[in-house]
Structures are given as structure tokens and as C-alpha cells.
């Protein structure tokens, strides 16, 4: 009867990563010398949870590592150790190591043990290095725990009286696990005290009526022993006494061989069971499960449970592997949001039953009531929709939180003094958008730190304060979220950008460009002005990727910069990916939707502006540019209602960096549409990014402009080759 704990492994990882994030944030906030007790406590608690969790799941290397970290923190918490910058840096490094370890474990990869032991040793060294002074401090404290620990190595063992309070099981703790863990510290001899066990028919399976007297042999320290009970501290009576050296020989008789598992008769007669650890715990769990736990059956199950104990371990580890492969996405939702939803659903149900009643014997004079009911229904539906959307919304602080660390690390690496300011962290946006915006943001921040903000000397020379300021700001504007990354650094160097652009052939030598146009150039592919390619930035794959990622999310990025004053990158993103502003267009009998973001303009076609090149490609002259015309009905093979260009409209769109004109029959309205996937029940269709349902219940397809451009290009090529064959 053991619970398969592997099912909680995902939760453990998730919580551990959250814990690590907390530790990191708090560590960065620690001021050496004047440490805030509350933050140290917070860090300690996080480390402690990770240690406890990893111990439970058998991730011993994580538990060991965290243990050292925890000891260090414990000393800091008690004021026995000063918080120094090296210590903080080392702890930050440990957080990194822990994160790597946990990530590797979750993905069933090898843990980088070299790095782990390196940091582990450093931590140990730090602990030892000041151990001397620590001991000095407690000389006065006479029989401090510490000293006993030091002497603890020679103790023969411990006498542990463990009497859980009756509500122990309800706290989710299992004495079996504790005793198992204890048995790893040394040989143990456990006796069970059934004296408070009630009559069988009075037995409440959820109450613990057992108590143990455990003799622990071996050289475990008291601290180690207490650690085992750390989780149940408040839910049990615990007595730990050292076995005096006189009783040192005792361990010999302690280790009872498996063969001596007591027979049922023994147990029946004797309420106190002497048994080997595994079976002691097995009997405990048997009675804990308690569906059939008269003392007699306890031992009967003991015998059965024993052999199964060992094989039970293996499936657990394989299950762990499987679970880690599929990382399930989950969101933490505030209880208030869920409550709001429940309220709303309640109202919806009331409205629905009201309408139902109305419909049962409807007469024309109640039409007024019906209309009221319907408008209420509409209101509730809309509110419900908004609230469900809210659930997917998370404050952008989830994304911003990683920046203090990044700035901290980079500024010391680059020898710059940088202050990070953040505002609008509570601005909410869709989880999916948040996940995808993370990397571009990191890139922009790195760029600002590396290229933007100057070194302290340079800044002083320019008459600016020594410390550069990087400002991250987020706010809502219309249906968009705006994220600004602002630095007060050198700004973009227009001359150098232009020179580089000419070098790379992105612009012609004699082109005259406005400053804004020049600044736009940094988003061109393969562009980097960093003279030295550092590992921070300068590989020139950056900004165009940033721009593309943002565009994939349906957003835009702009840059404003002034020499020696600073630069501001502004990212505008839609709040959610599930809803899109669309332009409805008519094509024959079908309605299609063009995403509004990709439309540049729509115009009436003038016959004199239509030109064609040999091979069938038609071009439209728009001001000074020639745009390829995509005849949608040809690409989609729909019978056209009209094929005369002049009778239709041209929607000028930009997709994948190229402009094109889509020839449609008519423009209908604009509206927000909910994106539905075609792939769920069918498959991806080229030229379409999804479908939506219009107000009348019919399905309309959403055009994928970039895909459409490619599709029509391929079509023209195919036509050409056909013509060549003919």
C-alpha cells in the first residue's frame, strides 16, 4: 500500500522552479551587510521546500545540494553569519545550479555533475571557512547544538520517541516514509505502541493511533535526525535522546535479519512489535490504510507487503521518466477570478431558466419580457467571455522578473553601472503571448545594456550620471499592450548604421534617408554594428529575429533614438492571440477574413495602372511601386463572379516582407473574430491561418497573407513551366 508519488512530480518541479525564482528575486534584493531578516527567511523557506520535496521524490543529489545551501542560510538567518557579497553571488550561482539540475532531471537528462560538485565544494568551503568563527561565537553558549553535533560523530545512536498526533494523516504525512528515511541514516530498531488503538469497530481509518519507539544506530547527527521529522514537527510528540556510549554495543542486536519477521501469532499476542525497518513501516501503512487493521491482520499484511516493497520502487522511476517527457502547460488562476466566473455562470443559469419559463407559454404580449431576457443573456455571455479571457491573462511581471538577474549579471560582466527600473508590472496579457515575448524582450534588454548604456567613464565624460538607467514599462492602450524598453545610453549611431547598411548592400550608397528610416535598418536581417562580437550580443541575428517574432504575434516594434540621450524600443502587441481584428471581404459567394494588421490600404482598381509581364504575372502600379496582383479566386480555384479587375477592389497587404494586392469582389465590414483552428479536425490548409464563425453561424476562413503570397508565387511558376512544356 504505497501511494504512487510520481504523479506529484510535475507539481514538485513547478513549485521548485517558482521557489527558485523567489530565491533569486530575494537574493538580488539582499544588501550585503544589512540583510533583511524577512527576505532571508523567504529564501530559506524556498530552499527548505525544495530540499524536502526532492528528498521525498528520491532526488538525492538535489536534496544534498540544497542541504548545504540551507545550512548556510540557516546560519545567516540566526545571525551567526554575515551576509557578504561573495556569499550572495555564490548563492545565486547555486540557484542556477539547482535550476539546471531540476531541468535536467525533468527532461531525464544527465546532470552536469562537474558543475554541481564545483559549486557544492565552494559552498562547503564557505561554510567551513567561517565555521571557526562560528564556533567562537557559541563558546559561551555552553552546550550549543553545534558542539553536540561535533561530538555527535561518536554517539552510538539515538532513542527516538515518535508519537504522531491523531490528525497526522490529514496533514498528508505518512509515518512510513519518515521511518524509511530514518532507516537510511543507520540501522534502526522500531517498536510499535498500539496501546491507544481503539476497538476495531471504533477505529477511524483517518486517525493515527500508533506510536513508535525507535532506536537508531550509526553515526547520524541529531540535526540529521531532526531533519527527517521536519515536516511533522508540529503534528507529533517527538523525543530524541542520545544513546549513551555505554549502550554502544546495542546496534548489534538492533539489526534484525529479514528472516525474523514476526509471525502472525507473535503479533497477535504481543501488542509491541519488534521488527526490521521495512516491515515496521509496512505494518504502519497497513494499519494506516486501516480498512482491515485489527492487529492480527497487520502482521499478515506485513509479510505480504514486504516483498512488494522493493519492486514497487522501480515503476516509480520509470513513470518519472515518462511524465517528464510531456510537460503539461498549466496556469495558476487566482481564486477571485474563478469565483467571478462561478458567479457569472450562476447568473447565466438564472437567465436561462427565466427564458425557459417564458418560452413555455409564450404569448405576444410578453414580447417585451423576452427582449429583456435576451439582452440580459447577451450581457452575461459577454461578461463570461471576458472573464474566461481574463483567466489566460497574467501580469507581465512574470516576464519582467527575470530582468533584475540579467541586469545584475551583465552589468558586472560589462563593468557598467546600471539601475533597472520597472513599472506597470501588473499589466496583464495573454499567457501564450507572454511566453513568446520573453526571448525578444531579453534580446532587446541585452542590446540596451551592451550597446546602449556606456561605461561609467564614458558617461562621466559626457556629463551624465555614472549610473545608467534602464527602464522597462508596460501599459495598455486600446486593445493592445505596449512594452517600452528605455535606456539613457548613447543612442543609435545613425552614421555608423548607414555606413554598415551600405557596406552590406542593404541600402544604396547615394540614398538619402531620414533618421527614423536609418534606425529602422537595425531590424534588417544580418545587421549588427557591434565592432566586437561578444557573447552578449553582436552576432547580427538579433534584431530581425526580434522583429519577426513580434510580427508573428501580430505586433509591431519601433525604435526611437537620440544620440547621447538614449533609445526607446516600443513593442505593441495584441492582448490575446485568440481574437483578431479582421476585414471581411467577399469573393464570389464566399466570405473571407483578412487580418487587419496586414492590410496597408484598399483601393479601387484603375485599368491604366494594371500591367502584365510575360508569363501571366500581373502588376499594379501604386504610386511608385509595382505590386503583384493575387487573384484570390484563381489561387483558391473558385468560380469567380467577375473576373474584370476594374469591377473589384484591391486590398494591399504586406506579408513576409513583401507587399501584394489581393483582388476581391467587395469589402464587407470589419469585426473582431475568434480564431478557430482548422487543424483540430482537419489539417493545415495553405494560404489559410484558420477559420472563424460569423454572426449568422456560418464559417468564414481567415487568410494567411504570407502563405498566400508564397502560394501565388508558386502558382505563377507552375503555370510558366506548364506553358514551357506546351
Amino acid at each position, binding site marked *: 500500500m504505497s501511494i504512487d508519488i510520481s504523479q506529484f512530480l510535475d507539481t514538485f518541479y513547478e513549485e521548485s522552479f517558482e521557489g527558485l525564482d523567489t530565491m533569486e528575486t530575494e537574493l538580488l534584493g539582499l544588501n550585503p551587510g544589512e540583510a533583511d531578516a524577512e527576505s532571508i527567511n523567504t529564501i530559506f523557506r524556498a530552499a527548505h521546500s525544495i530540499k524536502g520535496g526532492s528528498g521525498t521524490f528520491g532526488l538525492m543529489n538535489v536534496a544534498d545540494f540544497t542541504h548545504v545551501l540551507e545550512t548556510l542560510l540557516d546560519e545567516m538567518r540566526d545571525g551567526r553569519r554575515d551576509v557578504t557579497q561573495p556569499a550572495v553571488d555564490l548563492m545565486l550561482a547555486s540557484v542556477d545550479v539547482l535550476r539546471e539540475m531540476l531541468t535536467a532531471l525533468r527532461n531525464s537528462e544527465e546532470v552536469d555533475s562537474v558543475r554541481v560538485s564545483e559549486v557544492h565544494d565552494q559552498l562547503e568551503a564557505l561554510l567551513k571557512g567561517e565555521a571557526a568563527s562560528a564556533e567562537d561565537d557559541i563558546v559561551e553558549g555552553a552546550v550549543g547544538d553545534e558542539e553536540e553535533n561535533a561530538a555527535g560523530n561518536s554517539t552510538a545512536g539515538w532513542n527516538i520517541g515518535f508519537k504522531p498526533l491523531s490528525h497526522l494523516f490529514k496533514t498528508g504525512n505518512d509515518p512510513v516514509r519518515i521511518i524509511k528515511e530514518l532507516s537510511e541514516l543507520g540501522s534502526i530498531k522500531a517498536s510499535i505502541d498500539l496501546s491507544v488503538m481503539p476497538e476495531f469497530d471504533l477505529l477511524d481509518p483517518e486517525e493515527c493511533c500508533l506510536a513508535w519507539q525507535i532506536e537508531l544506530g550509526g553515526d547520524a547527527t541529531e540535526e540529521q535526525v531532526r531533519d527527517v521529522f521536519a515536516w511533522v514537527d508540529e503534528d507529533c510528540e517527538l523525543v530524541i535522546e542520545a544513546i549513551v556510549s555505554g549502550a554502544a554495543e546495542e546496534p548489534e542486536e538492533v539489526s534484525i535479519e529479514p528472516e525474523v519477521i514476526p509471525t502472525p501469532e507473535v503479533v497477535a499476542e504481543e501488542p509491541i512489535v519488534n521488527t526490521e525497518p521495512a516491515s515496521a513501516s509496512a505494518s504502519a501503512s497497513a494499519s494506516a490504510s486501516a480498512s482491515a487493521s485489527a492487529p492480527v491482520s497487520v502482521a499478515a499484511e506485513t509479510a505480504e507487503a514486504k516483498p512488494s516493497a522493493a519492486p514497487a520502487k522501480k515503476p516509480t522511476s520509470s513513470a518519472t521518466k515518462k511524465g517528464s517527457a510531456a510537460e503539461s502547460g498549466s496556469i495558476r488562476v487566482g481564486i477571485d477570478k474563478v469565483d467571478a466566473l462561478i458567479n457569472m455562470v450562476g447568473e447565466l443559469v438564472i437567465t436561462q431558466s427565466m427564458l425557459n419559463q417564458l418560452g413555455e407559454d409564450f404569448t405576444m404580449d410578453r414580447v417585451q419580457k423576452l427582449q429583456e431576457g435576451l439582452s440580459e443573456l447577451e450581457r452575461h455571455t459577454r461578461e463570461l467571455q471576458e472573464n474566461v479571457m481574463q483567466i489566460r491573462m497574467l501580469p507581465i511581471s512574470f516576464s519582467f522578473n527575470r530582468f533584475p538577474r540579467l541586469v545584475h549579471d551583465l552589468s558586472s560582466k560589462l563593468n557598467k553601472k546600471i539601475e533597472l527600473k520597472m513599472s506597470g508590472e501588473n499589466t496583464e496579457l495573454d499567457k501564450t503571448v507572454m511566453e513568446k515575448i520573453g526571448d525578444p524582450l531579453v534580446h532587446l534588454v541585452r542590446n540596451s545594456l551592451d550597446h546602449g548604456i556606456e561605461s561609467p567613464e564614458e558617461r562621466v565624460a559626457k556629463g551624465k550620471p555614472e549610473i545608467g538607467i534602464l527602464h522597462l514599462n508596460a501599459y495598455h492602450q486600446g486593445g493592445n499592450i505596449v512594452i517600452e524598453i528605455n535606456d539613457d545610453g548613447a543612442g543609435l549611431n545613425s552614421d555608423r548604421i548607414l555606413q554598415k547598411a551600405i557596406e552590406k548592400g542593404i541600402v544604396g550608397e547615394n540614398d538619402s534617408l531620414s533618421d527614423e528610416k536609418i534606425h529602422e535598418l537595425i531590424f534588417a536581417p544580418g545587421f549588427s554594428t557591434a565592432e566586437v562580437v561578444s557573447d552578449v550580443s553582436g552576432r547580427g541575428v538579433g534584431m530581425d529575429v526580434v522583429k519577426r517574432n513580434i510580427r508573428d504575434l501580430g505586433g509591431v516594434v519601433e525604435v526611437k533614438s537620440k544620440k547621447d540621450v538614449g533609445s526607446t524600443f516600443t513593442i505593441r502587441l495584441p492582448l490575446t492571440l485568440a481574437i483578431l481584428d479582421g476585414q471581411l471581404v467577399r469573393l464570389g459567394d*464566399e466570405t473571407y477574413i483578412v487580418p487587419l494588421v496586414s492590410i496597408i490600404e484598399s483601393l479601387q482598381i484603375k485599368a491604366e495602372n494594371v500591367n502584365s509581364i510575360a508569363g501571366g504575372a500581373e502588376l499594379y502600379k501604386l504610386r511608385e511601386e509595382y505590386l503583384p496582383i493575387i487573384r484570390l479566386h484563381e489561387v483558391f*480555384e*473558385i468560380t469567380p463572379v467577375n473576373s474584370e479587375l476594374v469591377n473589384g477592389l484591391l486590398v494591399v497587404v504586406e506579408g513576409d516582407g513583401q507587399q501584394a494586392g489581393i483582388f476581391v469582389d467587395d469589402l464587407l465590414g470589419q469585426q473582431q473574430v475568434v480564431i*478557430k483552428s482548422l487543424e483540430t479536425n482537419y*489539417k493545415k*490548409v495553405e494560404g*489559410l491561418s484558420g477559420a472563424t*464563425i460569423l454572426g449568422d453561424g456560418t*464559417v468564414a476562413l481567415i487568410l494567411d497573407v504570407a502563405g498566400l503570397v508564397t502560394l501565388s508565387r508558386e502558382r505563377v511558376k507552375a503555370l510558366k513551366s506548364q506553358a514551357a512544356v506546351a
Partner: protein
Amino acid sequence: MNMIQGLESDSLAENSEGNQYLTFLLAGEEYGVDILRVQEIKGWDNVTMIPNTPDYIKGVINLRGTIVPIVDLRARFSLETIPYGITTVVIVLRVNSDNGSRIMGIVVDAVSEVYNISEDALKQAPDFGQAISTDFVMGLGTVDDKMIIVLDIDHLLNSSVLKAISDQVDKNI
């Protein structure tokens, strides 16, 4: 969007021996599908055409917020197409595939009956080079001296989707 008949598949499964099959008519023949796969039966309604798909994919419909593709079974089996009439129905089915299940609809001439056919009463279909590849036929059942062609809808409809992809590729070349 008039629903002709809603089927509670769960309750039907319990009080039967052997498997239950919903049968439908297609060009005079009676075909059967596993009734547990049937989500609902609805009348033919207009669909939204999907561009660049083979003609047996009629398009997609909105089934309570889900986009469901519709396959014309006559066209799929290369039978002569007839204009849709009042008995023409769409049977919405749950199709299992390697990557989860999908919902698809098939257009048939008319629904017929629900029969119990035990597993061993299904006979292997002989391969005579008919339009319907025997791959798609799970077996032939007999009820009241009538032959029922029991279809393997997973294979049939998944291959329809896959074939649509290869057809599209062919067209592009």
C-alpha cells in the same frame, strides 16, 4: 441546422449483445458504422468551401463552435453524385487517428437502421477491385438477408485527410 435524431451512444451500448451499427444508404447499398462513434446526425446545410481540396471534401461547418470538415461519401467512393435531397443527412463521427481524435462529418443519401451484429458474424470482404477499397471495409454483415457493409471509418476518413494533402501536392507540381 435541424437535428433529426440525437443519439445517446452510452445508453445504447449497455443493453445489447454484439456491436451496434448505425446503417445508412449510399447508392442503393446499406453501409454501417460503429454507433459509438456517431456524435450526431443532422440535415444537410450549407458548408464553407475550403480552397484547394479534393472535391469529396465538401467544406467545413460550424458544429456548436467547432469547425468540422464534411466528406461527401459518394464522391469519396467515386460514385455518381446526385443532388442533395430531403433525406440527405450528415453523420458526424468521431475518428481516431495517431494524433488524437477528430470530428468529421460524412454526407450520405439517408440513414437507415440500428442493428446488432456480433463480431464473428462479420465476413471478410472479397477483393474484386471495386471502387471501395477493401481496406476501408471492416467486414460484411447480414441482417434479414440484407448485406451490410461495415466501414472502417478511422482508416477511411484519416486517409481522406492524408490523400487531400498528397492531392494538393500533386496539383502544385
